[in-house]
């Protein structure tokens, strides 16, 4: 009787030392909560504590998405791979994978990935269309556009329009226009820079001529070197400013598109892992 009571109380003591919030079920519940709170790194840390029996496709998917969100693409890939091919979640994981390709500008990999799929996935197809348009300037057929919903259709047609009337500035033209100081800058839409450069080049040229006339030769040479520097500098500067203009235009299209896609949750309308 005595021993029974003692063992009972010892067991009881040990039992009470277990923290109920750290049992497998509760870890999973809490991890899901962290995932939905968008505290992705801590959610991963919790999911990883789960036993084999508790890791199912939905957990794998959530771990993969978490890694994707914190920018660890390789890790997320590893977890997406583990999801059973027959699981309905596979399609969602594939969609998330294709976001990965889209964000990293891997158009070819995305295309390959898309063609290797057994079932056609609408979202991935859309991603492919957008990334081809963004990075390869390949315009989609008009029939394709109808597959998008109202909002996305507008976004897509806007994007196509931007790609069609692509008004890149020619660096050579900018440089040649700059034979008249500042004109090249005005062509690349840096109006005040053009004006300044016109004033400054002429001012130093005037100073040089004036000094030579008054036979202050040293100052004359000094001012002429500066004037020539500004003149040639403006030509080269206009050339590169046209390049910069094109570059930032392209960048702006990219930024805007990704901003839109991010707000639209990368077209994953029906995917909601948090209720």
């Amino acid at each position, binding site marked *: 009787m*005595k021993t029974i*009571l003692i063992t*009972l109380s010892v067991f009881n*003591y040990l039992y009470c030392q277990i923290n109920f919030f750290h049992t497998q079920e509760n870890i999973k519940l*809490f991890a899901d909560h962290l995932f939905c709170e968008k*505290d992705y790194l*801590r959610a991963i*840390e919790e999911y990883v504590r789960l036993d084999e029996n508790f890791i199912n496709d939905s957990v794998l998917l959530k771990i993969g998405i978490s890694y994707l969100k914190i920018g660890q693409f390789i890790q997320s890939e590893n977890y997406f791979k583990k999801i059973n091919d027959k699981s309905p979640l596979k399609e969602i994981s594939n969609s998330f994978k294709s976001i990965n390709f889209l964000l990293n500008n891997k158009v070819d990999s995305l295309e390959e990935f898309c063609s290797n799929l057994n079932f056609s996935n609408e979202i991935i197809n859309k991603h492919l269309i957008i990334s081809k348009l963004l990075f390869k300037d390949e315009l989609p057929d008009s029939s394709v556009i109808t597959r998008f919903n109202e909002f996305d259709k507008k976004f897509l047609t806007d994007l196509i329009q931007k790609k069609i009337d692509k008004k890149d500035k020619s660096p050579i033209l900018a440089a040649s226009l700059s034979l008249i100081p500042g004109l090249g800058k005005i062509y690349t839409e840096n109006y005040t820079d053009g004006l300044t450069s016109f004033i400054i080049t002429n001012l130093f040229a005037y100073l040089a001529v004036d000094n030579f006339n008054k036979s202050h030769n040293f100052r004359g040479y000094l001012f002429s070197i500066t004037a020539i520097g500004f003149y040639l500098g403006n030509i080269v500067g206009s050339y590169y400013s046209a390049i910069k203009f094109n570059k930032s235009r392209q960048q702006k299209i990219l930024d805007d598109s990704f901003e839109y896609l991010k707000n639209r949750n990368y077209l994953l309308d029906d995917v909601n892992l948090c209720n």
Partner: protein
Amino acid sequence: MMSIYVIKCFLVLIVFNCFGQDDLLKQKDYADSIFKAQNYFDAIKEYKRLMFFDKQDNFSFYAYNQIAKCYKYGGKFEKASEYFSLALLKARNDKEIFHTKVNLCRLNIIQRKTSNAKRMLDQIENEGRFSIYEDEIKYWRAWIYFFEWKWVEASKIFEELGKKNLYEICISNKDKFYSIEKAKILSMFLPGLGQFYTGNYLSGFGSFLWNTLSAYLTISAFYQDRIFDGVIISNLLWLRFYKGNLENAEKFALEKNNILFEETLDFIYKNYSEEIP
């Protein structure tokens, strides 16, 4: 043969063992232990767990407060202020409200947003119901002065509140810190003098040389009746160097003061960590 008493005693023990420590309290202690070990990233997770399972909201004020502190000690002030604000929503009595508000104010002090901190203290004072905490409000006001390098004002309050250590630090800093106005005015009269005052002799000498040279060029151009040249030289050279000279005087004084201030903060953090914002 065991008496019925012994069995009863065991039973009582078993019951106490199990219910003596509620699961939530256990989780709280666990989180606190991680917090004490200064493992703040993980502590946040445990406090979040505490809140997640605390369906009756008993611990939410405490947990939000602790999470905010974790972020603060990790140097993530934006997050810290977010969580202090959440804690404020969960505060249940005047004491909790006051301390959370003061915590928010302290965050502002650390971030050098002293005008914000001042406004918050004013608000707390105007509310009236916190009049019992008058001394504490005063104390944090002194810290605002401290971070604004207003040593006289800060030292007065610290002395009044009997904080001798802090008072002495203020007094010694009052003598040590360079006066930015003085440095600028000195440089205004003689280029380079302000830099001499802050101990940057080489730079002071350089400033003096460049200013003299460009002044000479300007004056000689005017002297030769080449007014246009003179204007250009004075604009492009002399004014630049004169402006640079004033800026340097101010920059050096500020730099030296910043280093002194950093040393002070380091000293305070190591020695009086209980009393800092």
